């Protein structure tokens, strides 16, 4: 516990602090790029990229091991990983373009083949006597413990660069995700933007290999954006929030993994991210489970109140307990079941609105279908003023005086 506290407060030594900062930057970049990938509906592509890094990683390790005696040279490994990820990505693209297979099928085929090849290579390496073999498994699940200063610096610097690139191209990427056809008419080259997005994603995956491992980096590009989506309806806020949540997950995960020797970093970061997701899922005021429950209760009361008012306005008897309670509590009805003057006025408005809604439903059945709760919400909150005027004008005169 005490060690974790020291890690959290960045007092566990310079190296650990740098690793923590690096992981946070990386996770922020992953959250940002993941948001765009998710909005582009290509979330699985990151899975294809991460798995196809393995053969390149193993090959680079082998070459460096034969050449230098020790395979653990991070820059070389990253270049190797990026190389084979690039080939894998290119194959996914080609399969998608040249055949009738969907992107998901192409991803599945490429991902498993590359991963299988990588595992075979690793088995071969283990039968050879190259130094530093044990370090390779660190790339599967991530290992920040014992990370070299230079390695941490490389990761932090690259993640920083990625964040900057994402900041620069944020609007272009957003336009690409929302409405590519429109982006084209604006003179954006959507083909090149798609490529840019993939390259940025690939960079995040490759840099993240050492931190979370190749199996789990996918989680960092998907979970924070999904969690962020619970909190906002604004595109740029979602991207920023995903970066923030990612950084928070990275912070918690890396510091937790420094508590004891051998704790894997990747799984801890992912679990932290999932915890953040869970909180968002349950407690988000917009789309969370709790909010939905409350909204359901509110809706029920609204329906009951509305029905009660309509019944009042039409002089029909009311029997429902909840409806009676609601009407009385608002001072719209006396204890003996007779409407108060205020109740009469509100009921009259409700009946008028109901007639407008009925007319609306008759006139534009398609539109009415599209609306949730047409008839419950005050019509002025749903239709624009000119549309209501048209309805009012078409409304047949009320049967007055009953």
């Amino acid at each position, binding site marked *: 516990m005490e060690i974790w506290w020291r890690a959290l407060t960045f007092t566990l030594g310079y190296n650990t602090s740098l690793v923590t900062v690096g992981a946070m930057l990386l996770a922020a970049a992953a959250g940002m790029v993941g948001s765009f990938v998710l909005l582009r509906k290509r979330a699985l592509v990151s899975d294809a990229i991460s798995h196809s890094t393995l053969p390149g990683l193993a090959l680079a390790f082998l070459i460096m091991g034969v050449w230098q005696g020790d395979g653990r040279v991070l820059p070389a490994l990253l270049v190797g990983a990026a190389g084979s990820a690039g080939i894998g990505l290119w194959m996914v693209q080609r399969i998608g373009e040249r055949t009738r297979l969907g992107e998901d099928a192409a991803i599945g085929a490429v991902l498993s083949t590359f991963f299988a090849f990588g595992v075979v290579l690793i088995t071969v390496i283990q039968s050879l006597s190259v130094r530093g073999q044990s370090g390779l498994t660190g790339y599967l699940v991530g290992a920040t413990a014992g990370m070299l200063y230079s390695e941490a610096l490389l990761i932090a610097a690259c993640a920083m660069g990625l964040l900057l690139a994402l900041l620069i*191209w944020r609007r272009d990427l957003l336009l690409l995700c929302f409405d590519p056809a429109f982006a084209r008419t604006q003179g954006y080259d959507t083909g090149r933007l798609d490529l840019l997005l993939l390259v940025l994603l690939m960079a995040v995956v490759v840099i993240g290999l050492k931190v979370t491992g190749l199996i789990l980096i996918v989680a960092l590009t998907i979970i924070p954006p999904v969690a962020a989506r619970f909190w906002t309806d604004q595109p740029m806020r979602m991207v920023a929030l995903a970066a923030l949540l990612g950084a928070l997950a990275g912070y918690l995960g890396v510091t937790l993994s420094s508590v004891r020797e051998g704790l894997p970093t990747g799984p801890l970061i992912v679990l932290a991210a999932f915890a953040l997701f869970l909180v968002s899922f349950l407690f988000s005021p917009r789309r969370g489970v709790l909010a939905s429950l409350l909204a359901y209760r509110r809706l029920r009361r609204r329906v009951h109140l509305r029905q009660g008012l309509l019944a009042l306005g039409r002089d029909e008897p009311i029997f429902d307990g909840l409806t009676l309670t609601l009407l009385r509590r608002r001072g719209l009805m006396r204890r003996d079941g007779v409407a108060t003057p205020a109740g009469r006025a509100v009921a009259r408005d409700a009946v008028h609105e109901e007639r407008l809604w009925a007319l609306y439903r008759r006139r534009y059945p398609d539109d009415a279908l599209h609306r949730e709760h047409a008839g419950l919400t005050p019509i002025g909150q749903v239709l624009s003023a000119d549309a209501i005027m048209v309805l009012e004008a078409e409304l047949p005169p009320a049967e007055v005086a009953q």
Partner: protein
Amino acid sequence: MPDSRLGKAVIASPLALQGVTVSYDHRPVVHSVDFVTPPGSMSAIIGPNGAGKSTLLKAALGITRRLSGEVRVFGRPLEQETRHLAFVPQRSSIDWDFPARVIDVVGMGLYRDLRWWQFGSRKLRRRAMESLVRVGMEGFAERQIGQLSGGQQQRVFLARALVQEADLTILDEPFAGVDAATEAAIIQVLKSLRDEGRTLLCVHHDLATVREYFDHVLLMNVRRVAAGPVDEAFTEDNLQATYGGRLSPVQLARLVEPTPAGWQEGTERR
């Protein structure tokens, strides 16, 4: 510089198509269509389902690849002159669950005027709000786009086009599936744009309103059948040729004659 060999009409036109051909799977869906959009006009592209109307627009805008043909904007190649064009797509092409509010979508029309270090400005927001006012949607600026009705979604897209202040606005079936109030509101905005001297080009489905809304038409069914001012091109023969005899003589007679008031009441809307 515009090519000196081009005709005067092409140089003056905000969108001139020449021999535009598009094919899907080796089958031409648009075949060698020529059309010079008259500046300051309100033009309709008309034809039956599958006639390639939307495809022609998309090819003209560079969204779909052309097999052959040229697209010129004021005599220059389209690629250099995208700034003159605004586009209102079909509503079905959008993911309405996208995390964006109405004001965000309208703001997208201004993205290319923003540098990356700018985080939006009051001036841009004001411009976006102004175009929302023009389409009667200012009260909905903070709504998530999925909460809008079909007609309101169409208005938002129109606002995004308005904010660009383009010379030519291209609309792909702006009246498909919208309520009558929205249709009236949209047509009013379009007419006000034309009165400012801007040009409008619509793919249009409802033959009954062609005379009322538009001054020029392009009748097409994969190939161009006829084009010109409504009075000259929107004739019985041309309609028959475009729709391949699918319109009854009674229908045709009604369409071609100036519409008597009240007749639209009975027409079916898509």
